[in-house]
């Protein structure tokens, strides 16, 4: 018997008890006033159940009280749950027909099982108040049958949290040198994803990042011969294990994921236009998702290789982020115009998704239509690349500096080139090059990057953004980064 069957049975039993006992067990709804922090809150659906007062989950006063306590109230009719959620984090959940309720992970006996009445879910309000650590609704004690039940000794609403990542485990690498090739088998226990990248000459470095993984051995440094001069294995950060190969040239590298890891074969054969990145999954689903992006056949070929599209973020009816009189849409347009002028002076063709303060698609359009319209400008013209310029914001004034985003594997080199120039030329704090599924990047056919130049929410960054000279410098750095990219890709 599943939980719902149990609960349906309980609800039926409750319904039967109402039929039998009628008003003796449950009175008509009445208004009751509750004082919370000096505020009068009126419950309009309160009924007296035999186990104590009950309030509907739809009661406006109940919602008001929970909100005033810093939480939110929701009723899930499909699953028959009433949930009170508040940051902390903690959840108080009542299930229809269940005489216990959960405060975080702790189960407590309820005064009575929540029940349905006229399609409304009623919960024991005294238990709710107790769980919220608020004074009781009234001084009337609960009936002895329930008052004798002591709550569990653990008052904490949330179990003591303990870090418990469940990452894949990289157990080691096996390096085998054969004439003309080197095979590196990366042993991995578990499922997960990876991506690989290559730096061309003179670096000739190739690496694969295994995401959400832990290295269970000591870091490895191993020489492997002529094709691969060294193999290095490191816990790159808390969630990533990196296996890096130093190649002798632009060697062909074949990546094959499997159930127990990833096999990398580097051959002595070199490729004039070796693919620079790829991704895939390993483990039990390796076959279904193996390296679709690793194929060089997906490489974008611009029909207009001298055309660069600059996208000033927001515009028209969408001001973007705002601080006082400073609007993101104006800042991005100014910087984009400078980028355009610099690139045109260097002989590039440049198109802006907007040249003035307007929506690219239509005023007050959806984010989807607006962002797709910006991608359409670049896609329809077969541009070489797309750069979207934005201004960042956060809920507090702490974060500052530049952040550059990419999503597709083909975006990475462009994002890195632009980010490198901005941080070196302007001396901003570098928040890094971050993968993010941004619509404008995902739907651009060509390499694309989005630059969040600085934080409008940070006073120092805001002062920089408001400086025309600083915006000119930012534009120069973005343009320099674009040119760097085109010279190496």
């Amino acid at each position, binding site marked *: 018997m599943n939980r719902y069957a149990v609960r349906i049975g309980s609800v039926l039993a409750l319904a039967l008890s109402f039929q039998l006992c009628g008003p003796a067990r449950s009175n008509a709804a009445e208004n009751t006033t509750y004082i919370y922090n000096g505020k009068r809150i009126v419950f309009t659906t309160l009924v007296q159940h035999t186990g104590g007062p009950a309030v509907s989950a739809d009661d406006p006063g109940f919602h008001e009280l929970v909100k005033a306590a810093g939480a939110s109230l*929701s009723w899930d009719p499909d699953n028959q749950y009433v949930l009170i959620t508040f940051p902390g984090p903690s959840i108080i959940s009542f299930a229809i027909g269940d005489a216990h309720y959960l405060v975080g*992970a702790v189960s407590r006996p309820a005064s009575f099982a929540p029940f349905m009445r006229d399609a409304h879910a009623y919960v024991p309000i005294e238990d709710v108040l107790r769980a919220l650590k608020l004074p009781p609704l009234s001084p009337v004690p609960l009936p002895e049958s329930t008052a004798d039940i002591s709550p569990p000794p653990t008052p904490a609403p949330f179990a003591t949290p303990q870090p418990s990542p469940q990452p894949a485990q990289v157990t080691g690498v096996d390096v085998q040198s054969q004439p003309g090739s080197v095979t590196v088998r990366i042993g991995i226990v578990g499922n997960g994803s990876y991506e690989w990248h290559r730096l061309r000459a003179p670096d000739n470095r190739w690496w694969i990042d295994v995401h959400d993984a832990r290295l269970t051995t000591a870091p490895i440094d191993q020489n492997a011969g002529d094709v691969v001069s060294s193999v290095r294995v490191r816990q790159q950060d808390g969630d990533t294990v990196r296996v890096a190969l130093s190649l002798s040239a632009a060697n062909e590298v074949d990546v094959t994921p499997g159930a127990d890891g990833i096999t990398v074969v580097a051959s002595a054969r070199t490729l004039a236009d070796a693919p620079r990145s790829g991704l895939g999954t390993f483990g039990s689903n390796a076959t279904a998702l193996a390296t679709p992006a690793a194929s060089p056949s997906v490489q974008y070929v611009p029909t207009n290789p001298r055309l660069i599209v600059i996208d000033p973020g927001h515009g028209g009816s*969408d001001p973007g982020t705002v601080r006082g009189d400073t609007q993101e849409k104006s800042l991005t347009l100014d910087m984009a115009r400078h980028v355009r002028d610099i690139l045109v002076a260097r002989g590039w063709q440049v198109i802006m998704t907007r040249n003035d303060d307007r929506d690219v698609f239509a005023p007050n359009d959806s*984010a989807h239509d607006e962002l797709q319209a910006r991608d359409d400008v670049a896609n329809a013209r077969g541009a070489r690349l797309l750069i979207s310029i934005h201004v960042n914001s*956060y809920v507090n004034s702490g974060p500052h500096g530049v952040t550059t985003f990419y999503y597709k594997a083909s975006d990475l080199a462009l994002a890195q080139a632009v980010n490198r120039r901005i941080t070196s030329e302007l001396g901003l704090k570098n928040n890094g090059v971050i993968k993010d599924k941004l619509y404008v990047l995902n739907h651009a056919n060509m390499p694309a990057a989005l630059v969040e130049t600085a934080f409008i929410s940070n006073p120092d960054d805001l002062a920089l953004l408001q400086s025309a000279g600083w915006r000119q410098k930012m534009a120069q750095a973005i343009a320099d980064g674009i040119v760097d990219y085109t010279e190496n890709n």
Partner: protein
Amino acid sequence: MRNSRVFFLLALLVAAAAIAWYFASHRTSAGDVTVYYTKVDGQSEVPWTISVRPQQGESGADRLQYLVLYAASQAVAGPPANLSAIRFPAGTRVLSAAVDGTTAAVDLSAEINDGRAGPLNESGEFKSLVWTLTALPGIDRVAVRVAGKKVATLPGGSFEIDEPLRRSDW
């Protein structure tokens, strides 16, 4: 004397059976849910483990359904106040959460539209939700709706949510 001894043994037997029944019917085994909160750098996660006691007699499907709702609600509720992490806009809650094959379908309340904290924040919010739910057995993607509707991005936002999200999206 003999009768009283038999009676005593019978009473002992009944008491033992009652105790055995009590422990059998109240036995629970802890199950863990890991909620991942995204740090403010937008890249790394803080895992928190919560023990969720199974309900008596619940099936595996019922339990997964409950865990998805519970874990999604915890992810949206955010971490303790003293932990610096990306949070959903105030008031955002889970309207419903369901399991469809390997997809967890989560409907978030309209308050999520109130957040205008930049792409890193948006990405971090959904990363927390996706990391958390795909840590549950059998779930590998998360379909997001806002107030019952499928949307491409949040208003004024840029993080794409019209297709089910996977961990590999980050």
